[in-house]
């Protein structure tokens, strides 16, 4: 399956290579570099590149390309999913997944890759198992290891590997038993010129941080499970129980994990939490244009809209802008023509706005593209779809855990089309 892996940074250098079968020369990456050159944006490099003897399947995360070399037929998603899992693992181990972090921890990276694949076939990808095999580096442990020469490598086969609960290790002990669940929803929307919604959909995830002793068996029920249209589970969730009763029943992995991701059924009308008023004019022939943008909260269920960030790609004809925000700060990059405005919190009494003029290229005709603006925001303590967790129960263990549930709404791909 996966023959070799090359890590390539944004400037096109291979900074790590790993081979699971016989060595593939790194010159195979030349085909990748060619494709990289052809692509205008880093994202435009095709994920699958055929070469005369190999196939290159790559993913781009954190501005690092993970290029896997394949020699024969394999489902491409298999490789892609695995590469993403590798990135997730690195992130889990090192906190960040950057070139520097990988280079600093090259030995751990190698040990991890060695455990994750055998002969190109995934062996252990569950983070709980990996963490038993190879301990994540901490500052304390690094110091201790360098002094005592002890190791990061576990000596026993992780119990999870063999048990029927492969995602949980045995013998977990905590003095404070706690289970936290974050319901995070993202709204994707496209708003047209007139302010009406073209598409809007809500996707959500429930991320959990469970630190419970022993083998707890949890059930989580919702007040309104009908809202959930399409769901995908962590392998620990008992699917049939969900089918029958709409209850999440599971033995949780230890630590952080994503319990569930869901999609809110499209029948439900999505409440759009913010609105945009705008007035942008380019006058034909003149070198001045007017720009005016006002944001306001719409249906936010009484919660404040925070961390608002507006960005827009202005037409090429715009040379510079001279704008005045009523709050926050704005920047305009005259090279990339990217306007971004860090608004902060929206105050419903005094709506934030950005007004001013744009200087246009002299003699340039009126741009005919529609600029779009992307809006990011957060609403704390509310899930936009109205999803509510009813209760969380624990079986199988005697102690009383501390339970907590947090809701949050974020903008996903939230776009507004502007007229001109």
């Amino acid at each position, binding site marked *: 399956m996966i023959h070799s892996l090359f890590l390539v940074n944004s400037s096109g250098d291979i900074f790590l290579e790993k081979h699971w079968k016989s060595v593939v020369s790194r010159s195979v990456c030349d085909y990748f570099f060619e494709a990289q050159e052809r692509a205008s944006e880093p994202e435009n490099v095709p994920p699958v590149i055929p070469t005369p003897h190999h196939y290159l399947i790559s*993913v781009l995360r954190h501005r690092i390309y993970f290029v896997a070399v394949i*020699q024969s037929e394999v489902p491409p998603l298999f490789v892609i999913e695995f590469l993403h899992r590798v990135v997730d693992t690195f992130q889990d181990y090192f906190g960040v997944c950057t070139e520097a972090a990988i280079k600093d921890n*090259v*030995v751990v990276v190698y040990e991890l890759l060695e455990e994750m694949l055998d002969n190109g076939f995934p062996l252990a990808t569950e983070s709980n198992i990996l963490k038993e095999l190879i301990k994540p580096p901490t500052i304390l442990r690094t110091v201790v290891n360098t002094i005592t020469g002890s190791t990061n490598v576990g000596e026993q086969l992780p119990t999870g590997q063999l048990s029927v609960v492969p995602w949980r290790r045995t013998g977990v002990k905590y003095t404070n038993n706690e289970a936290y669940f974050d319901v995070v929803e993202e709204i994707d929307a496209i708003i047209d010129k007139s302010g009406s919604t073209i598409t809007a959909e809500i996707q959500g995830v429930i991320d959990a941080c469970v630190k419970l002793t022993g083998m707890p068996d949890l059930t989580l029920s919702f007040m309104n499970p009908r809202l959930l249209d399409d769901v995908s589970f962590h392998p620990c969730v008992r699917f049939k129980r969900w089918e029958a009763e709409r209850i999440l029943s599971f033995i949780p992995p230890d630590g952080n994990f994503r319990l569930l991701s869901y999609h809110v059924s499209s029948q439900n009308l999505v409440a759009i939490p913010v609105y945009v008023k705008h007035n942008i004019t380019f006058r034909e022939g003149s070198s001045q244009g007017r720009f005016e943008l006002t944001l306001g909260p719409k249906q936010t269920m009484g919660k404040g809209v925070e961390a608002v960030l507006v960005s827009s790609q202005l037409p090429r004809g715009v040379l510079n802008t001279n704008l005045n925000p009523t709050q926050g700060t704005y920047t305009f990059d005259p090279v990339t023509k990217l306007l971004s405005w860090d608004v902060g919190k929206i105050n419903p009494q005094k709506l934030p706005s950005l007004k001013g003029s744009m200087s246009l290229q002299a003699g340039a005709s009126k741009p005919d593209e529609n600029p779009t603006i992307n809006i990011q925001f957060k609403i704390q303590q509310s899930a936009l779809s109205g999803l509510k967790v009813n209760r969380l129960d624990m079986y199988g263990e005697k102690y009383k855990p501390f339970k907590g549930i947090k809701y949050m709404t974020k903008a996903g791909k939230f776009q507004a089309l502007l007229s001109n």
Partner: protein
Amino acid sequence: MNGHRGFSVLRSEAAGAVRTALVSAENLQLTLKTELSQEEQHLTPHTHTNGGPDETHTKGYCTEVNEDLKEMLESNKESLKLEAMKRVVGLIAKGKNASELFPAVVKNVASKNIELKKLVYVYLVRYAEEQQDLALLSISTFQRALKDPNQLIRASALRVLSSIRVPIIVPIMMLAIKEAASDMSPYVRKTSAHAIQKLYSLDQDQKELLIEVIEKLLKDKSTLVAGSVVMAFEEVCPDRIDLIHKNYRKLCNLLVDVEEWGQVVIISMLTRYARTQFTSPWKEDGVFDEHNERAFYESDEEKTRDETEAKPYMMDPDHRLLLRNTKPLLQSRNTAVVMSVAQLYWHLAPKNEVSIVTKSLVRLLRSHREVQYIVLQNIATMSIQRKGMFEPYMKSFYVRSTDATHIKSLKLEILTSLANEANISTILREFQTYVKSQDKQFAAGTIQAIGRCATNISEVTDTCLNGLVLLLSNRDETVVAESVVVIRKLLQIQPTQHSDIIKHMAKLFDNITVPMARASILWLMGEYCERVPKIAPDVLRKMAKSFTSEEDIVKLQIVNLAAKLYLTNSKQTKLLTQYILNLGKYDQNYDIRDRTRFIRQLIVPNDKNGALSKYAHRILLAPKPAPVLESAYKDRDRYQLGTLSHTINTKASGYLELSDWPAVAPDQSVRNVEVIEPVKEWAPSLGKTGKSKPAKSSDDKFYSDSGEEEEEEEKGSGSSSSEDGSSSSSSSEESGSDAESHVQKNSSQSSEESDKSSSQSEKSSSESDSEKKERKTKTPLQKKTVKPTAKDGDSDENGNVAKEANSSSAGESSSDSESDSDTHTDSDSGTEHKKKTKSKAKPKVEVKSKKEVSLLDLGDFTPAPVTQHKSSVLSPSLLGDLEGLSLSNVSSTIQLSGPAFVPEKSHDLLHRMTGKGLSAQYQFPRQPCLYQPTMVSVQISLTNTTDHPLEQIHIGDRSPTGLNIHCFNTIECLEPEASVTVFIGIDFNDSTQAANFQLCTKEDHFSVSIQPAIGELLLPITMTELDFRKVR
């Protein structure tokens, strides 16, 4: 060199001193700097300390001599060695050559330090190929490690041994693989499955031997092994479909619990398998009723076979099993699993069922960019054939400005395929915004898409054409050019009165610079020159002026235009044409010269070529077929969806064709697992009993499991509280009462047995004991014991073969019982043991009723370990609970075990003739009853065979009146041909007396009765021999 050596000694000392402070990366760089100069010096004169005879050639280019690393490796300090190895691994990671250090490194292969050892392994695997002789030095270490009691060490030794690509050790590898394939640890067996592929790629001659090992491992019941061995199968012998037959049902049933990567491989293998073994479900309009089919599944095999051959199409139960067991995986978090299930449904499911994958595929679009790319490609192929599948999700394919270009064009592709009369206006409106996009490549793509919509949907052709004409005045050149090209194609399709469009384009001609667009306009002029008689010659005049500066493609069209005009309007254009032909004659491009010569001969009459020029008009101005605008994904469906070949649209190496459905299904009995007695209906229960229960049971698996689990919990806590203070004898009694509550499989008849059941509460607890004893003495009495078969195997082994397992008691921690199970598997797989069991079982056969015989026989061929049985019945996660439970709550002697197998057989409760169209069947799912511990759970499937809905089906009067039945909720309405499965609980009061009750509909009520066989009243438990004796 000496100087350097001295320096590096110094350096290594220094390194020792500062090691604690230095981060290894810095250290590394320092070392590298010194290496450079060393390298220069060493390139020529070096003879290696490690030089084997045939190594010099591999060393020819060797780069780095790293003396200080070598010294660190040879030092006595573990920490120095480790530090050195870490730096060596750093070198490997950077792609630097570290093969120089091979002898120094290989010495450490037997190190006690696990991390050091692992790093040495990494090094060995990387360089052994280049230094074969030296690598051999390490082999004995691995051979020793292969016998290590620690399974992790055994496994990693095999991993490394098989990864050293040294042909000379092939026999050793072969031996090791064979041995590991029957290792008691599933983890080691998994490793051996991986090793098979490695050995195969090293030496293809071992194929036959390896196939034997694969065959053996395919029989393995561990979910850990399944994925890996199927992978090996795919790599080594994908054509040996016959190896799969016997394991097909097991693989289907295990699938949900296999790890996600294994699932992908198994699903794709099963897809190929199914295409060779089942007939096409796509024939006729095949409206297919799953419940009907289930009824067949329950009925005996013979009948099914007959039915399958007969018309109308009837799906093979195994085919259905595959579809049913893969469906839950659509909810997987792993995108590759979801995709592989989707392609399985696409290639195998009846047409009306395929659409259940839609929602899941659309969900994948929210994943990473690369995932989107692959999924969109597959959707593009699917949407061409089946628009309806994705139409409801059209909005998911709307393009966002932040999408990558290849994602945008795929979405465009899909939207175009989805367009129909109903939604075209929405799509066109969406396209309008895309045309204005700043990404011009994408805008051009959109224009092509509009063209495709216009040809596909005749209603909008004119609208599209007008829209495209408007685009001709767009400022962007690529947009205009693309519009021209598309308009040209559209006009060709609809060559009616469009002369004004042609005129308009002629006017624009001067402003258009893109060659393709200019060529298109010229071609249009020529083709329709009779409609624009005034303009065409004028255009030709302009072109004659600029001919030399045009692109080749434009020149060709100029020549074309000239020729056509010459034929239609020779008066005005004769001179111009000749001028152009002369220019063309001396053009640099030979194509143009050729074309010019040809045209001249064709149109200009002279003596020699009179024959052809007569037809010139017909040749040049023949009506031409309109181009077909179709999707680039049109013929991608020749590749299996989800494959690499599909993505790159060429056959990737190692691609396995999906065969066409066979016209006649091959013998389906090959999938029946061998049994001695005719107990076919039990066959699928091998391995994964819980799931292979007929009818709904598989669908209900998790549900019932979790129900069961709650039940268990309740009971556990209840019993612990009530029994806490009591003695061990009372706890054994408890087990008895448990047992009676969970009534098990029927079997025989004898009055002796019913006797027994009345006094069952004592006996069942002592049963296994008596069985044991009786077996030894071989008294006929032993037929009474209806015990889980696993226990049979177990106790046999304990008693007769080895003592290794019996020390582990039920009260042990979960990890203990795992290793316990390992031991069992091991001894189970030994054929010798099996034979013993078998020969023991034989004498019993004669004295037993048929059913019981098979019960015991089954023990012979499914000697699965206890834990395995549990996992087979309970969801994996549940096992954890159970183990926890048995630890804390239940008395240490008793461990509930799931039924070893559950018969498929269901009994008629109400025949459809007597039931006026309502038919009911019941069976014992052998699960603890949800409602009350003393009840037996019974599964009833109700089917409406009438042509009108039946209303309000419920349970009415019962007799004896005290009979305690937990009824199902009234079924408000049962549609014709529909069926429903319900569970009821009946308290038989430990007797085999029939439970009589009435099954009522709105209009009628029918008396029915359920008579339990004695076996169904028992609860299977597992206990060790010791406890067993104690209880006795």
